[in-house]
């Protein structure tokens, strides 16, 4: 009996430590974003929302926020469309070297972001393409396409083949089969890929830093703020970024995983 209480006590303590380890930095970040003072370090002087006000009146920061959203959404849409098309063709048609092609599509996942950014930088330079949000978006498509492809490909099963056949039998052409039957059937996994891709793009720094020039994304703007020293304002914007990610995850959890469970 005593032993059981002890064992369960230890497990609970272990759980508490794990979560503390994961979330303490975030909690501290959020806490000191409300710091009434100039330094986001202990001691906590009192509660104030002045740094959030400062964030919202900071034109550059707000512009960076808008850029981040634009890049995240556009690059994720492109990644999902390309990932879906690749997954569809590899799952439904006999293609030459399909195992190799699958491998090639997923390979960028194993390459570090730094290498990808440097490679793209060299390529864009050779093409005389100026750095902009577009080039950042291209970089994010490169890193998110393998993810989208893998998620969508994994959800394409043989049981959908007959459903697509039925659609074709009823007179649908290939495009209509994809648009009206396959894509809606796979919508849970397509949306999962989309939201994951958005969160990855949203707080990606290295590629965004190396492939942008005048218009920058939020992580790059935060980084340049940090260069001028610690400031509760960076905590405030960090908290907002965190909040946005949590919101996306919650949307994902309740709208998609909840729905698939029901089915």
């Amino acid at each position, binding site marked *: 009996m005593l032993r059981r209480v002890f064992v369960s006590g230890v497990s609970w303590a272990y759980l508490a430590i794990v979560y503390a380890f994961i979330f303490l930095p975030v909690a501290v970040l959020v806490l000191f974003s409300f710091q009434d003072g100039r330094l986001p370090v202990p001691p906590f002087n009192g509660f104030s929302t002045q740094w959030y006000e400062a964030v919202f009146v900071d034109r550059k920061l707000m512009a960076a926020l808008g850029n981040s959203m634009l890049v995240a959404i556009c690059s994720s849409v492109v990644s999902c469309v390309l990932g879906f098309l690749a997954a569809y063709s590899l799952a439904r048609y006999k293609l030459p070297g399909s195992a190799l092609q699958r491998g090639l599509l997923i390979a960028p996942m194993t390459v570090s972001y730094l290498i990808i950014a440097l490679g793209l930088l060299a390529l864009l330079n050779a093409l005389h393409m100026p750095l902009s949000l577009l080039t950042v978006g291209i970089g994010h498509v490169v890193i998110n396409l393998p993810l989208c492809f893998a998620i969508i490909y994994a959800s394409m099963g043989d*049981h959908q083949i*007959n*459903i697509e*056949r*039925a*659609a*074709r*039998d*009823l*007179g*649908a*052409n290939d495009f*209509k089969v994809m648009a*009206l*039957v396959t894509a*809606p*059937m796979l*919508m849970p996994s397509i949306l999962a890929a989309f939201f994951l891709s958005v969160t990855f793009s949203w707080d990606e720094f290295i590629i965004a830093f190396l492939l942008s020039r005048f218009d920058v994304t939020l992580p790059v703007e935060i980084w340049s703020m940090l260069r001028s020293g610690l400031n509760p304002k960076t905590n405030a914007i960090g908290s907002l970024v965190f909040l946005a990610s949590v919101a996306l995850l919650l949307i994902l959890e309740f709208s998609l995983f909840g729905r698939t469970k029901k*089915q």
Partner: protein
Amino acid sequence: MTAPVSIENVSKTFGHFTALDRVSLDIRAGEFIVLLGPSGCGKTTLLSILGGFLSPSSGRVVIGDRDMTFVTPAKRPTTTMFQDYALFPHMRLVDNVGFGLRMRGLGKAERDEKALGFLDLVGLKASAGKRPHELSGGQRQRVALARALAVDLEVLLLDEPLGALDLKLRRQMQDELKAIQKRVGTTFVHVTHDQEEAMAIADRIVVMNQGRIEDFGPPSQIYMRPRSLFSASFMGEVNFVSGRVRTADASSAEVETSLGNLALPAANFTARAPKAGDAITLTIRPEHFRGADKSDGPMFTLGEARVAGSAFFGTHYRCHLQPCATDGDALVAHLPQSADVRDGEIVPLAVRAADVVALPAASGTL
């Protein structure tokens, strides 16, 4: 709409495997045809060739009076009902049923109206707004049928549509399928491995085995006058007794077997006319054994047999009988409910000549 179907000398090979071997079949417009056979006999391959999902290696498929051999499924006047129903999981029932009409460019109001009509036909009009996952297996089945019928089709192809249903529901759906087929008049081609299902719904049954058609005809003919040993044994229980033709003329033949001699009408030689000296196999259904005393036609006594085991099946006693004359295989006989059957008892065996079918022996060529 409805159309006749003609399959001319169709073969299909997959690598070295021959799935269909020169199959020819003529189906009349508005017929309910069942392709019956064990798994791997080629029945589903034949259905896929009719539906356009496979192309034959050789031969021709004609539907109506148009050659359809290489026409895509979308352009054929056929619709397939799949074994797993293949409903669109993300669409409401009315949209599922209206999908084919949408592909044909009908406006929403018009196709919804038609779709509701077909849902009504299968008794699911009230559920039009539901999605497939809210339905039971039998209801999904009905939606699949409504969806297939909603498009202007001439031939409906059904790929073991009742396979996933429990027995009671399956019997009920068989009756419904048959009734709906009668109402719409479309040619139905239905694949199954269940011989009871085949007999329950078919106008004519096609018995298939190893890529060939073994037998083709109305259920009663397939059962009572099978044209091959396979067909006889696949359609219910049967006893095989080997024998030899002693003498034969145009109208009858004298046959000798280990159980005794019989004179059979020549018409009972369903596969080939009798010739003296032919090795044959007699097929006798278990219910055709009668007590020697009741005579409602020319009877042949086949000696006596000892009851080696029996079980009561409700409609009859199913008995294993060991003929006294030989120590060959035991026979299976269905004796009437009223019979008082005891193990070890000696019973007389008799059959009506008209009930015995003579087929070439298994080693002989068909």
